[in-house]
């Protein structure tokens, strides 16, 4: 018997697979899948204080082994989310991780306070790293990260994940800043800032020029960030996101140190994939005679998969 359950962030996740923020929207389109089979958790699209229409189209373009998006945090805003979306989310039998962002300290504090009190919010994820909005992503530097995480944790006791950008030389100081200010864990990583150019016109393809690269192309980048953070913070809950498209990449993410693994772009292509990965993961662990998923987490730091095996 293999146990996929994960107890982290004060929650019992049925398995380590999450929908990461963005591609699955608020998860409601996937409700039939949630109601049929368990999934670890659902991370919502990022909610902001006021409604955002998002960036002008085109918002999506293919990239080698992935895609570049520039959605721009399109969302209905906090009030509409609380009134219309959250009641439906509460019906889904999974852990709900609510992603949120605001442009300043006051906004972050206010949102964390309101969301942290709302019924049905299990975990908060502070998005410090969207590459598709005005200004620099806060997690490009430790000081901004520290300030915003402090504001959020001052306002709520709900476990808070800090979602960080991969576009830094060293993620560890930024992660340390977030953890020192009370973040309960880390989500690593957001999309990688990228660009594509239309060859027939010579102009950037996306209307806002820059976009966030996701998909298999960024797996090695995400793995490196998760590995670095796990090495620096052995006990901290880590959600690994970036380039997980199949069982192999999910295993690598776990071995690098991810307690929970988010699926992003791949769920846009294949909505059933996260549920199928749970089945495949269980079978893989069973074949390897590893009785608990948690034994696999971070095994790359401990001498490899052989040390996980239980007879």
């Amino acid at each position: 018997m293999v146990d996929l359950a994960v107890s982290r962030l004060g929650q019992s996740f049925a398995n380590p697979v999450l929908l990461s923020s963005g591609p699955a929207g608020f998860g409601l389109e996937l409700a039939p899948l949630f109601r049929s089979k368990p999934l670890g958790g659902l991370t919502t699209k990022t909610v902001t204080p006021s409604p955002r229409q998002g960036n002008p189209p085109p918002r999506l373009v293919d990239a080698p082994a992935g895609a570049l998006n520039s959605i721009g945090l399109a969302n209905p805003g906090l009030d509409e989310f609380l009134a219309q979306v959250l009641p439906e989310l509460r019906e889904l039998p999974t852990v709900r991780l609510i992603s949120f962002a605001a442009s300043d300290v006051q906004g972050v504090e206010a949102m964390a306070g309101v969301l942290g009190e709302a019924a049905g919010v299990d975990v908060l994820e502070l998005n410090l790293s969207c590459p598709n909005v005005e200004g620099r992503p806060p997690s490009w530097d430790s000081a901004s990260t520290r300030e915003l995480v402090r504001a959020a944790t001052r306002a709520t006791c709900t476990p808070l994940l800090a979602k960080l950008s991969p576009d830094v030389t060293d993620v560890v100081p930024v992660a340390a800043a977030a953890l020192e200010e009370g973040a309960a864990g880390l989500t690593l990583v957001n999309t990688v800032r990228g660009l594509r150019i239309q060859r027939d016109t010579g102009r950037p393809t996306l209307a806002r020029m820059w976009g966030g690269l996701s998909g298999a192309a960024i797996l090695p980048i995400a793995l490196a960030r998760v590995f670095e953070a796990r090495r620096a913070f052995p006990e901290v809950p880590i959600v690994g996101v970036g380039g997980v498209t199949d069982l192999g990449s999910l295993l690598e993410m776990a071995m690098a140190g991810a307690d929970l693994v988010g699926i992003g772009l791949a769920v846009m292509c294949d909505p059933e994939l996260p549920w199928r990965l749970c089945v495949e993961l269980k079978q893989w662990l069973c074949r390897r005679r590893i009785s608990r998923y948690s034994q696999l987490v971070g095994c790359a730091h401990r001498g490899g998969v052989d040390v996980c095996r239980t007879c």
Partner: protein
Amino acid sequence: MSISKGRRRTATPVAGSFFLCWQAAYLDRRRQSGGYAVVELIVEREARGQPGQFLMARTECGPALPRPLSLLWAEGKRVALLVKDEGQLRARMAEAPLGTRFDVRGPYGVPYRDAVEHSRRYVLVGGGSGIAPLRFLWQRHPELVESVAFGLRHTVDENFLPDTPLLIEELGQPTAGDQALHVWRPGLGLIACGPREMLRQLAAGLPERKGVYFALEERMGCGYGACQGCVVMTRDGPLRLCTDGPLVALDRLGW
């Protein structure tokens, strides 16, 4: 009919989630001409597609994002698509041997009949593979159709699209859009699907906005309304082409 099974297995669909599940589609027949192909696929479950709806399709070879392809027709477990032989997926559909497996899910999108007023008849204007949903509408709901103007850039065989008048849009000659503007008169509606340039010319040439609908295209992500990748901006705010489109009333577009 001979079908050779592909390598990838189809996962058992979760009850009530057919809309979200990939299903195998095997290339069964194909007609090619002038850089276009009509491909007929046999799908595992009845497609039940309506004119204007589309399937998301992919192959094992990529690209990462699946592609939306409008139905040319759908009958039971057989669906037909009209594709131009360009791009990874379309080129494969146009070139792969019969029996090749593709994956499809859907159908998605609002059927044209549900998106337009029924109090008027329409001039249908199709350009290139944009002919597909309009020809389907014409066949399925002739009571809505006043006339059709379908244009292709290259000459095709006589039987490529049987019983369908096709205008070959050679340089300097009238286009399908010109023809449509010629036959349109007040009181009629117009539904157009084709290149953005064709739609812009129609918008500029039409004296009325009421009763005019354009099928728009943007790079699509999920196809089921979650990712907001295929949004177009309208007077009423963002509109997701996959779930609220693909047909958009011209007076909402502000063109």
